[in-house]
Each structure stands twice: as C-alpha cells, then as structure tokens.
C-alpha cells in the first residue's frame, strides 16, 4: 500500500517555505532583498499545502490527485524559470519513466500523405534542433480571481513559467509526413493514464489549428533548460505550443492525429478550455453551445519582487516582475500605488525571442509610511490591457487576468 500524506501541510512548513526561506533564497541579489525589508509572515493559521517532491521546490499544491502545483509569485523572479520552480499541471496519472527514452515512439497519422511512427532518437537526429525561451501557461491560470468561484483548480497567477525548451519544429515533422490540403486541426495524445486507471480512456486530448501547428516556435520538445525533459514535465518528450492554453502542449507525447475537422478529443467540448461567447451571469450554468475555444492566453503582468505581504523598511521600492501576452508582445507595463488613480510606466525589456516573457522594473517612492497596494498592468502590442477585475465569467474559469496587485506595509 502506498503511504498517504506524503505531501505535507503545516503552519511550520508555510512559515519556513514561503514566509522566509523561499523569499530570502529566491530573490537575488540577496543584499537588495533584505535592504528592502523582510516579508511578513502570513497571519492566517492555515496555510497552503507545500509540495514535497524530489527535484521540486516547495510549490503550492492545488490538488494531490491529479497533482497540480503552482509557483508563488515571489518564486518566479528568474528570467528563465528553473526546473524545480516550474509549475506542475496534470490531467491524469504520471506514466512510468521509459527504460530507453530514445526508443519512445511518436505516431503522426490522419490527414498526411505518409503516416509515420518515429522513435525519439531518430526524431532528434533527423530534424534540426532549436531552442527558445517560451511561456508555458495553464489555461486556467488566474481562475481564483473569479467571483463567484469557477470550477476547477484555483490557480492564482502561478500556473505559468518561461523555460528554455529544446526540440524539433512540429512543422518540420508534419512537412516530412506531407500534410494534405484536407488538414484542419491537430489532435494530440499522451501516455498519461486516466485517473481511474482505465487504460481505454485518454486523460485528455487537445489540439490546435494547422496554422498554429506549423508556426516555427511550436516544438516537439525533449530538453528543458538544457537538461533531459523531466518525467513530471512530460519527459521524455512533449509538445510546446507557446502562448496558448497549456493543455495543447501535450506531455508524454505519443501521437499527433491530423484531423479534417476541429479535434473532438476529451477536453475539447463542453466548457473545457472555452470562453462564453455571449456573456453570461456570473455563477450561472451557461450553455456549452454558446462558447468559443480558448486559444492564445491573455496579457498578464506579475510582480515577482517584493512578495505580497512584504514589510518594507523604507519608502523606496525597486520592484520587478514579468509580463507576457499570448501571441503578442508586451509594449508597456504601468504601476499604480493609489488604486489606479495615477500610473507610472515601468521599464520593459524586449523578449529574447517571440513567446518569452519580458522583464519589467520600476523604482518607486511611496508617499508615506503605511499600507499600500502596488498594482501592475501590462498592455500588449495590439493595445489590449488587463481589466480591474476578472470578467467574462465562465463556468470553468478561463481568461482571468485582472491587474496584478501586491500588498506592502511601509515601516513608520
């Protein structure tokens, strides 16, 4: 019998993990972090569960089965998210690690001239290998901001990370298989068993329009930050469909079925990964027929320093964070410390490549001691910005991207 309770939760862990150790360790340079003041220990007696898993940091556990864990904002400060801090999203069980990763087979079939089954080792040597720093973001990121609650794992902003992914272009593989003019959509399958253990049920199978599959940043990936892709992140091989709902970036990839219609696998219907077409009353049942597929993720800025709940020793605050915008580039990030009455532009760095998040920094002089909310709002290259509250409520809570805020207390 497997032992229960291996993912531990306690106030002690919370204080150790989030309150002090994490922030102190994660926010380089340390001197700057402490000059700005140590963050306050959260006052609530009941904290979140923290992940206890080899090779992973103490992420916040949203659910144990399937395992889903998000990265607290103050642990997202790296330009390239380290593997141990990268969020975990599963729909099913984690499959067994293969004895020989290079023998792992991927099938390409459906609307192609030459259906093929290729071993990972052959795939790696046959097609050009490319590396990009790209966002991977859970489709439900930001769900917890909806009111009333929307159904599903209650992600704050931590279902997102930017890793360096190495793989081959899906376009190169599809071209080798010869995409027929009848091809419309892809259907992706992975080796993760259904939660019930029933091998006949796929845990999830999503896809993308052919144009997105052929986009040169859409990759079949086998390395993450230069290391063999870890099992928990879909290793030995997964898709990365950057900027789009993470569920299309199939882990443990076994098959790409090229379809002559929009894919209809589990996770494509109902309210799954869909937004309400006609706005519905928040908290109502809605009509699954009146929905559209969530494709690119919405624009979002997240402050990574200081942490929410930080106590500041002085009124001077050098804050920083990352912003990203699905298919688009972030043009501006604006900061407000007075609930949106006035805004000040942050400095926004260019992305290293398309689909990477962008660093923003701002130096603020808070007007007094006391309590402040610091808000960060990104605007993309199309002029689209973030709402003040999560809008367009939908039963499964997609597209929640209200303006990010942290709460700080300046010492008297």
């Amino acid at each position, binding site marked *: 019998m497997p032992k229960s309770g291996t993912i531990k939760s306690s106030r002690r862990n919370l204080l150790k993990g989030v309150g002090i150790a994490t922030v102190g360790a994660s926010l380089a340079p340390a001197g700057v972090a402490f000059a700005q003041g140590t963050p306050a220990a959260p006052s609530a007696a009941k904290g979140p569960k923290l992940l206890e898993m080899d090779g992973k940091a103490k992420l916040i556990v949203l*659910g144990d089965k399937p395992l889903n864990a998000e990265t607290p904002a103050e642990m997202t400060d790296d330009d390239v998210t380290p593997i141990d801090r990268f969020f975990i999203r599963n729909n099913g069980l984690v499959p067994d690690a293969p004895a020989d990763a290079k023998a792992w087979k991927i099938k390409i079939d459906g609307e192609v001239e030459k259906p093929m089954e290729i071993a990972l080792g052959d795939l790696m040597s046959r097609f050009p290998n490319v590396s990009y720093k790209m966002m991977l973001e859970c489709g439900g990121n930001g769900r917890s901001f909806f009111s009333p609650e929307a159904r599903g*794992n209650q992600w704050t902003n931590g279902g997102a990370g930017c890793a360096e992914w190495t793989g081959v272009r899906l376009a190169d593989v599809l071209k080798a298989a010869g995409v027929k003019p009848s091809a419309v959509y892809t259907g992706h399958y992975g080796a993760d068993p259904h939660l019930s253990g029933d091998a006949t049920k796929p845990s999830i199978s999503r896809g993308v329009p052919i144009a997105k599959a052929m986009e040169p940043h859409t990759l079949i990936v086998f390395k993450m930050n230069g290391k063999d892709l870890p099992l928990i992140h879909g290793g030995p091989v997964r898709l990365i469909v950057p900027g789009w709902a993470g569920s299309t970036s199939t882990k443990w990839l076994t098959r790409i079925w090229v379809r002559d219609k929009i894919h209809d696998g589990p996770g494509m219907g109902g309210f*799954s990964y869909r937004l309400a077409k006609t706005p519905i009353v928040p908290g109502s049942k809605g009509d699954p027929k009146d929905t559209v597929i969530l494709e690119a993720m919405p624009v979002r800025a997240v402050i990574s320093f200081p942490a929410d709940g930080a106590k500041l020793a002085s009124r001077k605050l050098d804050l920083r964070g990352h912003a990203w915008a699905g298919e688009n580039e972030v043009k501006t990030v604006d900061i407000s410390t007075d609930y949106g009455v006035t805004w000040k532009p942050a400095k926004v760095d260019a992305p290293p490549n398309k689909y990477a998040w962008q660093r923003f920094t701002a130096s603020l002089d808070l007007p007094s001691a006391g309590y402040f909310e610091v808000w960060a709002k990104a605007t993309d290259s199309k002029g689209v910005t973030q709402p003040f509250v999560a809008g367009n409520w939908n039963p499964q809570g997609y597209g929640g991207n209200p303006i990010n805020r942290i709460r700080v207390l300046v010492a008297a």
Partner: protein
Amino acid sequence: MTQLNISHAVVITLTATFLLLGLDRAGELRGPQPTYTPRAAPAAPAAVADPDKGKPPPHNDTVDDLPDGKGREVTFYSCTACHGVALIKAQGLTRDLWDSTFDLMLERHKMVPVKAEERAEILDYLAEQFPPRRKGRNADNPFLK
C-alpha cells in the same frame, strides 16, 4: 457445435486447480508450507530502470478528509475513484453548478454512473458543504489578525 478436446481439458483442469488452491485459505489442500524467511540480501538488479523514478509521491485520501455530513461516504467513494478530495474542497459552487459538474464528470471524464438517488445525495452533500464562499477582495488581508 462445441467440442471438448485435449487442450480444453487441460485448461479446465488447471483453472479448477488454481481456483481450489486460491480459495484454500486454510491451506488444507496444500499441505504444510515452508515458513517464509526474507532473503538475506537481494541480488543487485542488473540496472533495471525504476518506473516510478521522477514520479510524485503517491497520494491516498480517506473518508475523514471530507467534512462529516449526510452523503459523505457515497460522495467520497464516487469521486475519489479518480481524483483527490483536495479538488472537491477547493470548489465553491451552487447546487446547479454542482449538478453540471456531475455531468462534466460523466461526459468529459467518463465517470462510472451512479443511481439517481445516489446522485441526489451526493449533490445535496456537495451543495451543503461546498457552497460559493468567496468573500470580497480584502477578506484575506495579510495584515489583519
């Protein structure tokens, strides 16, 4: 048209033997068995890959992980056939939305169906224990005790 041949006979005999031995908990048909002694030192495995390497720790809930109430047992056993109780406890839904959640589980996730009265009992339990409860945006202010 069914004819018994030698291989049928063998299969039937073997099956019956295994069944008998399997059901023979008291060991009367097997005679005295050697007592079990653990092997002193397991032979070093020839570099067999550990299929669990890199997996998250196993997780199992018990019925006590759900709050007490009428319908707790049937809710626990129906829902945790697939997912953990943490997912249930994270929700705050009206009975209507719990009802459509049930449909989602049946249709999208291929849940094993339950009887109508069990469904009603589960929905009553979920709606009572996990109603919408999200408070205003300052309900969790870190500087308030």
